[in-house]
């Protein structure tokens, strides 16, 4: 068990920034540029870690809780999740609730850290973040219900167990397909990607997540970026596992399959980002509600 935890952590910590690089590379290729090197995110993190801090005189100790929680939560959440074929290190009944609420914790502290600066822009960002998440959360819950129903269990480890492979072939497959779409949308929202949010825009008014961390600097900013990367990887792991439920048995192969899936997902995200325009804010709720209805439909399918 300890070994598994360690393995999971190392894989996570090593590969987390990579998908970001892949995404940026893909976008660059679509735009016909060469783009930054694949490992650019690693360089950025290293640079930020060497820099010093600058704090606004408005801020208090709450300001620092944002990065800390943002970093810690994925580290814990990942232990409940199987990376591809390797099964989840920790797994108990009802851990999926814990999984969801851990990210709730990080959202809470990111938001109040943003409000700590007293800047109206960051307040705006916090408001939007909590608003959209309260539309994304039910979708996540419905999708988890579908999985739990089809696996007849309440722990993520069992939900994403090997049985998924042949469930794709049964009548459950249809709803699995639906929730894959839903989870992809949730992934985009939670990790503030286009079309819901634009990580590297420079117009604060259009940002959601980025605007909340405007005032962070140095290692704190680094922790935030790293935490975001970890979060992206954890959620992608969920999606990848559902799409590629292969179980070769050999640890190395499974890991390889998983990483390939991860990169594939990153490429997909890159393609979406480079082909779609950012939605105008009022449209975002409509899209999210649509996704929620989709997940409800999936649930109805498995329950009948």
């Amino acid at each position, binding site marked *: 068990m300890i070994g598994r935890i360690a393995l999971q952590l190392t894989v996570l910590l090593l590969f987390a920034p990579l998908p970001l690089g892949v995404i940026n590379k893909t976008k660059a290729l679509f735009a016909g540029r060469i783009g930054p090197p694949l490992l650019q995110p690693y360089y950025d993190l290293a640079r930020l870690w060497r820099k010093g801090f600058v704090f606004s005189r*408005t801020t208090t100790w709450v300001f620092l809780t944002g990065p800390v929680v943002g970093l810690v939560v994925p580290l814990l959440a990942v232990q409940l999740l199987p990376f591809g074929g390797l099964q989840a290190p920790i797994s108990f*009944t009802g851990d999926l609730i814990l999984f969801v609420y851990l990210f709730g914790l990080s959202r809470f502290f990111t938001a109040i850290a943003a409000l700590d600066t007293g800047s109206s822009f960051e307040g705006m960002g916090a408001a939007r973040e909590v608003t959209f998440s309260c539309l994304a959360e039910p979708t996540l819950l419905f999708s988890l219900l579908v999985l739990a129903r089809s696996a007849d269990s309440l722990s993520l480890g069992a939900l994403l167990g090997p049985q998924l492979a042949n469930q794709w072939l049964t009548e459950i497959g249809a709803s699995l397909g639906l929730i894959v779409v839903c989870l992809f949308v949730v992934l985009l929202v939670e990790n503030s990607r286009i079309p819901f949010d634009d990580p590297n825009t420079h117009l604060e008014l259009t940002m959601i997540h980025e605007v909340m961390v405007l005032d962070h600097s140095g290692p704190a900013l680094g922790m935030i970026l790293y935490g975001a990367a970890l979060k992206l990887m954890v959620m992608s792991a969920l999606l990848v596992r559902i799409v590629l439920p292969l179980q070769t048995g050999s640890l190395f192969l499974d890991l390889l399959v998983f990483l390939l899936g991860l990169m594939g997902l990153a490429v997909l995200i890159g393609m979406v980002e480079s082909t779609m325009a950012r939605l105008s804010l009022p449209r975002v709720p409509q899209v999210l509600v649509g996704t929620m209805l989709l997940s409800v439909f999936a649930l109805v399918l498995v329950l009948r």
Partner: protein
Amino acid sequence: MMWLVGSILLTSLAGVPGLFYRREGSGGERFACGLILAGCGSGLIAVALTLLSDNVIQFAIPWSMPGGVLALRLDAITAAFLLPLFLVVATGAVYGLGYWPQHNNPGNGRNLRLFYGLISGAMILLLSARNGVLFLMAWEIMALAGFFLIITEEHKEEVRRAGFIYLIATHTGTLALFALFALLGHNSESLLFPDMGTLPAAGSSLIFLLGLFGFGMKAGLMPMHIWLPGAHAAAPSHASALLSGIMIKTGIYGLVRMTSFFTEIPAWWGWTLLILGAISGIFGVALAIAQHDIKRLLAYHSVENIGIITLGLGLALLGRSYNQPALVLLGLSGCLLHVVNHALFKSLLFLSAGSVIHAVGSREIDHFGGLLKRQRWTGLYFLGGAVAISGLPPFNGFVSEWLIYLGAFQPIHHPGSSLSFALLTAPALAVIGVLALACFVKIFGISFLGEPRSSGAAKAHEAPRTMLWPMGFLLLACIWIGLLPTSLRPLLERAATDWSGNLTLPKLTGNLAPLSAISVAGWLVLGLLLFIGWLLHRQSAQASRDIGTWGCGYQFPAMRMQYTSSSFADSLVRLFRFGLWSKRHGGQVRGLFPGREEFSSHTPDLVLDRALTPAFTGLAWLFRWLRSLIQNGIAAIYLLYIALTLIVLLTLLLR
């Protein structure tokens, strides 16, 4: 037994000696506080005795009263409600020393303490009463004492209105309870409570409906919550903590106790509770987000949490009607644990809100801001309460919501049955949770962070120790339940077993509900957070803190440019436009060079302000018209009434 009776007597009479002290002296309040602490202590001993030994404390002595018997009983269910009661009452009493000192309030301080003690004693009595008359008496004493707590500052118009609405609501509920107990006891002479699971459910729908109305009115379940926001806002903070933390739970207690009497439960009871719970939860929190008065906001959160508790109870009832022990266990233990938790963190929140109001002198969130710098401890306690009430790990709120979630997930094991609709409880809980989170981000961020938004906030000061220590104690209790939930397992399991009558229940362990795993996870989260936080803090220790917030290029940021609570809530309130009908004022930016523009929004209560008040006004108008018609002052017409009565009676009786 004597411990229990002692605690009832000590608490209920706590305020009496104070009446004989000088108006300005502080001797009376110390004495009263001491009595209350003693009472709570002996009560805790009684509860501990019950929990440690497996036998229940009970006794009954005759009482010269038609249908009355002085019957008391302290079983697990009662204990689950008494435990938080003693904690909250004791902390509130200590807090009161600093918050409502006699020498600052010579006029109403003594009444406040008198009724504070009285309501506590009455609640202990009603939680342990086992006789209809005794229960009703304790119930009404509690209600009246609560009324006098609410109208402590009766010179204010709003306070009087809140008190009146509360009085109406509670008395109407009590009348329903009269009918309830009359029906329960019409075959027995003594009106003693029937034993668990002895009454046939057939033909008891009316009993259930009456109980739902009477107890739901007290609990503040959604359509019956009309009295709650105003009352909690009007009372002094530690009184609000008691009302919102404990008193409304007596309604839940009534529902739990009443449903425990029946042998089999009709399914529609459970469904009704589920629907009402979901409504209270979602609309309660939505209304809370739209409030800008910190105590009204917290009050609406009480409605929300009552909704969550009711969801748990509804699941348990469904479990009984569908005969599913696991569902019963999870639902009821979640319900009871959330009762305990809500009592703890809600009173913590009310107490810290009280210390903020004490410091700033206003209840408007938009007058606060930047308080964390000035009230570091209060801020910390409030943050703890906020995390707990949002149901986030590693605090106690998460544990109970987790149990209810597990209950809500149970139906996946039985596809195809109509029970599957109970699955919808889970998304409902999710929505409630996320909205609560948003709401507490708003209230903590707007009032404790950023820059002061008013001169009062700018010169706010930290509260005295007598107010800080109780809050710290409550926060510790929250953390304790969050990190060591297993310590409450025996209580919950025994309560569930008592409640569910003849069902044999599983245990809260293993693959049903691994509380130990939750506590491990809690420790992990806490440990990692503290460790990494400490690292980061050490690294950033000597960083410069002398520059202003990045204004995105704007050079002259002012306090007025901060996000207000209205603007923060706006995007969410718009999402719920269909159900809230908030009023929005201003916010339109006009012209090429727009001038000064205000934006604010306020949301009146759905039921009270939009439905009941107009209805009653119309009714009163109709009555006044009828009055001028009937009692028109002409003696001849009065004689006509007599003649008509005579004729009608003759024609009716001489057939």
